[in-house]
């Protein structure tokens, strides 16, 4: 699974940056064509839902999606991230 931020819905409040326990979001740098600074993804392969949703068959964590006031975060079906890229940080 792949996490996607919908740039047409995001208003750039950065609450996802605040609430994500894996810190996969970071504030964006430049405004898009709507003038919104959409957050960027920082090593999204660390996201638990991206990795484990298919395995467990349910949403894992999902706090960013629940918190996002603008319904801009969703997961898309995609090939899993390369396993070697998963770096668990202690």
């Amino acid at each position, binding site marked *: 699974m792949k996490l996607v931020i919908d740039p047409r819905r995001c208003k750039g409040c950065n609450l996802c940056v605040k609430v994500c326990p894996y810190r996969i979001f970071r504030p964006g740098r430049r405004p898009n064509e709507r003038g919104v600074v959409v957050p960027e993804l920082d090593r999204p392969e660390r996201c638990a839902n991206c990795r484990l949703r298919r395995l467990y068959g349910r949403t894992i964590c999902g706090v960013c999606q*629940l918190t996002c006031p603008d319904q801009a975060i969703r997961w898309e079906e995609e090939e899993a991230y390369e396993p070697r890229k998963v770096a668990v940080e202690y």
Partner: protein
Amino acid sequence: MNFMDWYRADRLPTIFCVGCGNGTVINCALTAVSEVGWKREEVVFVSGIGCSSRAPGYIDADSLHTTHGRALAFATGIKLANPDLQLVVFTGDGDLAAIGGNHFIHACRRNVDMTVICMNNQIYGMTGGQGSPTTPRGALSTTTPYGAEEGTFDLTALSIAAGANFAARWTSYHVKELTNAIRAGLETPGFSFIEAAVQCPTGYGRRNRLREPEDMIEFFRTHSMLRQKYDRLLAEGKLVPPDTIVVGEFVRRDRPVLGGKK
């Protein structure tokens, strides 16, 4: 089914300001509704006037966006006329506690079978940040430019005193707990009241040194206290800061219900 499927995709993005907590609470409510397994045909979303009350317009189900403060009276009519329908009411602090205060206590007293989610942002957001019955003492708003002087309503305590069957309070930071509380409210027969403290960076935070959305979320994180801990501290006679937001489930009981399924 994911809560995202309940939205009217053609209506998004919402009209809410950047960082507004209302969207979060709608997410939680829709998650709870889909977890309970209600079908779209059997749920009616009702609201009054205000930012919070725009919520039903974004939900793909029957919805009634009514006049200021009267959502609970409309919902009472729907529920009693057709008890097979499930009622979820979105309301705000101004809508529920000020202009709709009388309907609120009477809906609690009747214990009408419905779930009321109050997005309490402590301000009138839609009209640009005027003081409301829940604006804390000392807080600045456009109609309390020297700090609010009036006392506030504790809406959860009010609902319990008036007879609600279920009452809980969480914040837009506690999304999982809020979802579970709303779900418990949906499953409890009778009047269920869930107060969700939400951030209003535009109307409230901007004037009260919580300018950014994350500042307000951080405030909720650090100033929330579980009800059990709060009660214990009080019992021990310890000092609790006055700006503490006491969260948790406050009551779950089984008083006779009006408008239950026939």
